[in-house]
């Protein structure tokens, strides 16, 4: 059982928490403007890396707050616990975010999707 250091309550057993999947996954700001494919990507697709993962957790049996964790999915080591609206400061976690996180280019993806939709419409 993981030991999770809630930013508000301190270290607690993971049975007090609820898992929330991939972190930093931003909802397309204008859903009407994106293609089915882009929307489906947001809706259904999650990264599932073997290794460091940035993920959301909620202290459901405690303070009910959402926050993020940088966790290694192989070793289960928790590298960092950080606020929901922040980026990781741990170097390895930051590197994962910068290099691999597909949401990084989400604006470009949305723009491309709009173009695609327009083309289909035309």
């Amino acid at each position, binding site marked *: *059982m*993981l*030991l999770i250091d809630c930013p508000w309550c301190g270290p607690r*057993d993971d049975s007090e928490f*609820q898992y*929330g999947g991939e972190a930093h996954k931003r*909802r*397309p700001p*204008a*859903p*009407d403007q*994106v293609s*089915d494919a882009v*929307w*489906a990507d947001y*809706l259904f697709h999650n990264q599932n890396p073997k290794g460091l993962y940035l993920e*959301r957790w*909620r202290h*459901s049996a405690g303070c*009910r*707050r*959402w926050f993020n964790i940088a966790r290694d999915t192989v*070793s*289960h080591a928790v590298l960092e616990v950080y606020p*929901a*609206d922040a980026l990781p400061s741990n170097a390895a976690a930051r590197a994962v975010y910068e290099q691999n996180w597909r949401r990084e280019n989400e604006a470009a993806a949305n723009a491309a999707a709009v173009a695609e939709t327009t083309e289909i419409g035309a």
Partner: protein
Amino acid sequence: MSHQPYRLASGGHIDRDHEIEFTFNGRLYRGHPGDTLASALLANGVHFVGRGFKYHRPRGIFAAGAEEPNALIQLGHGPRTEPNLRATQVALYDGLTATSQNVWPSLRFDLASVNQWVSRFLPAGFYYKTFMWPASQWMRYEHVIRKAAGLGKAPTDRDPDRYEKMHDHVDVLIVGGGPAGLAAALAAAATGARVMVTEAKAGFGGHICFDGAQQIDGQPAAEWVTAAVAKLQAMPEVTVLPRTTVTGYYDHNYITALERVTDHLGNTPTHLVRQRFWKIRAKQVVLATGAIERPLVFADNDRPGIMLASAVREYVNSYGVLPGRETVIFTNNDDAYRTALALDDAHARITAIVDLRAEADAVAGDLVAAARDRGIKTYFNHAIIAVSGHRRVTGCSIMELAEDGTTVTGPVTSLVADCIAMSGGWSPSVHLFSQSRGTLSWDDEQACFIPDVAHEATVSVGASAGDFSLAGALKNGLKGGMEAARASGAKGRQPAAPKVDPVTEMPLRAIWQVPTNAGKGKQFVDFQNDVTAADIRLAAQEGYLSVEHTKRYTTTGMGTDQGRTSNVNALAILANARDAHIPDVGTTTFRPPLEPVAIGAFAGRAVGGQFEPVRSTPMDPWHHANGATFEHVGQWMRAWYYPRGSETMREAVDRECVAARTGVGILDASTLGKIDVKGPDAAEFLNRIYTNGWLKLAVGRARYGLMLGEDGMVKDDGVTVRLAEDHFHMTTTTGGTAAVLDWLEEWSQTEWPDLQVYFTSVTEQWAVASICGPKARDLLAELSDDIDLSDAALPFMGVSTGTVAGLPARVFRISFTGELSFEINVPSRHGLALWTALMAAGEKYDITPYGTESMHVLRAEKGFIIVGQETDGSVTPGDLGMDWIVASKKADFVGKRSLARTDSLRADRKQLVGLLSTDPEVVLPEGAQVVADLKPAPPMTMLGHVTSSYYSANCGRSIAMALIAGGRARLGETVHLPLSDGNLTAVVTEPQFFDPKGERLNG
């Protein structure tokens, strides 16, 4: 009743002043407090205690601890009976009763033992090869296998014992109370760290308790142990737990342990729990779990009387029991000589020691020399090639080993023996280390796996680290305990290691499968699952290269003993068959629990009424007093219907439903989920969460809302009231409240943190009585003089605040029945008073309480959905015909984009329709599948299923709703419902059955 013929005159840690009686397989025996069931049976000369799993050959007591594979017994009877216990771990108490497991009909006459005569038909993979086809026979196979397999019987009655869960946090957890564990505990405790030390057995000290005369710091080892335990127990930060088995080692040093509190007592004191299940979070863990002796794999090595050499020694020295009067010792190492010396000390006859090693390789060892000095006959470079005796070993034949150790040569010598003490070397108990994801490495010299790289904050010491000497265990125990304490943040100096005389031991000779020229005998590797060396070789020959596959195919190591005594032998034989190096074959993974654990221990106090909370409304006493029946709705117990006299459920529900539409009905709606939504952005938030518009809802007005998941599927529904500009009272489905609150919190915290809005669960703060029917207004008017109930002042979907029956109330004019209806909300403490007042005032209107069943019927008559009944997470508002509530002009709301996905727009989606059974008296079964083309037998193309179905007294016939593919295009069509007891037909209709225009809302 015999007295104990194999009990020695002295020795052992038993209470010789008291004799206690016990029954095994119906026979009465005597033993002493301090005995295990196994030691007491041996004291009575009983070796033959069970039969093999597959061949049903006679089996005897094999070991003295948790590794026992043979002596599996069923303890006790009635609700306290427990299967799969190892007789070697069952503490003897007065009046104990036990029976052999895996025998049918009896131990001595076992029908299934014919299996041993047809064993050539039971090779490796027997189950896979035999019980394969036809698959339709599997149910029968399982019955046969279970009967033959003898897995014990679970009790059928409720467990009468109490169990407790314990939670603790420690700096250093030490698993194992042998010399290494005690040394680690002394070192860690001396720093002031919070220390816990667990020992699976009743007594501490491990092997030094029965290894014979050894001195630690100039005192007998046993006295050093007693002093160490006393010292630890006296320290306030130290918890000492005997009879406690660590069962699981999980992530982040989370450890579970089972403490057997009263299992060793015959008459359990009622104030004590039977077992405690500990959940421990440790900063550091020291594993001092010892080692397990391996058997030698020789022909017919499973005959009763053939035991592990260390077990023989333990029975002699710890229990004062002689397992045999004439013992042959068969070994590949020095340690078994300790058993020879122990037997000699007890004046027992040793026929001979048979040592697989050449004399030159063994003679320099201190123990070998001691045996020689005592004149014990030793055959070096010899092997047992055959064993005589069936239900008890009577002797063995030995031959000299040829030079390379793979064949035997020369003349046969016969030895008399009623006990063979065998030793194939030692395997460190790495199970917990392996559970914690530590990796193992192969120690070629000691021929065993030892801990390599730890994954958790853990260190292994003593025999469990492959350090089998007492001096090494003490020294490295102290070091490990000290390092663990320091790593946990404590400070201190490591105590000096106690002085121990060194013992010189020579290396073992690994001969994994003892050669024989006798041919016939089975060479058992896994005694619990009856796997032989030949089975493993057959698996290799059939192409099972991976050890994990071989394990499953042969079932070696898959018994409840998790292969404690068999794994290394099996791996080595597999490696040999594949001509591979042992570590290259790999190891299998050990999984928790380490030993079988009673389900009751996992449950703890969470049984019966404590299993899950029962929620009841403030009006609950009235429902009970007035004959209501109840049903579970989530954790709630809700009034289901109120039968009068001898009414059936159908009669009661019919009466209640008619009354609600002709007079006045009253429903306890307190269980409805209620969430107080407050903040300057509350309206904006609701506008994004619900499918319809909320910005323009006037204060004092209510609106029905539908909530979708981001996938566009209906998630919840309910009426929400605007109490003030920045204040809403949301209601949710009874079962969905917690999930809805989570949902709101998630969007608020993670997606729209800029919106100022706050959520509070107020479900339990408000009691709700819902009155409906043409007389509802007249009734309410009698109890309220400060609320204007006129259509103008309180229209449909209007809200007023005032008093009802003198109680502060919020009155919502909303309706889930289609009738004129008022939901009266009062603070919970007034709920029962409100209800009582309404019932009293309603008497002249013949007010009729109705329960959840009538509520369901009444809403179904109107075609109102219930989320979770008409929906299942795959249903959109469009599927329900509820497009009217989707504000497609709103820029966005949760789930909106998904409604435009191509899949959401398919014409053949399942849509909500009504179904009218051809026979109006027949109520279609809920869940029944609907087909268009009836065929004599499946498969048929299924269109959907019935979601709700009732008899409606108001309609004078049965009604139903269903989700049917392309349903709205099928209005008027006849569909079929194929059922196992006959087919039904129905006509597809609109899903409204009563007052479709909604004219009755105004009374």
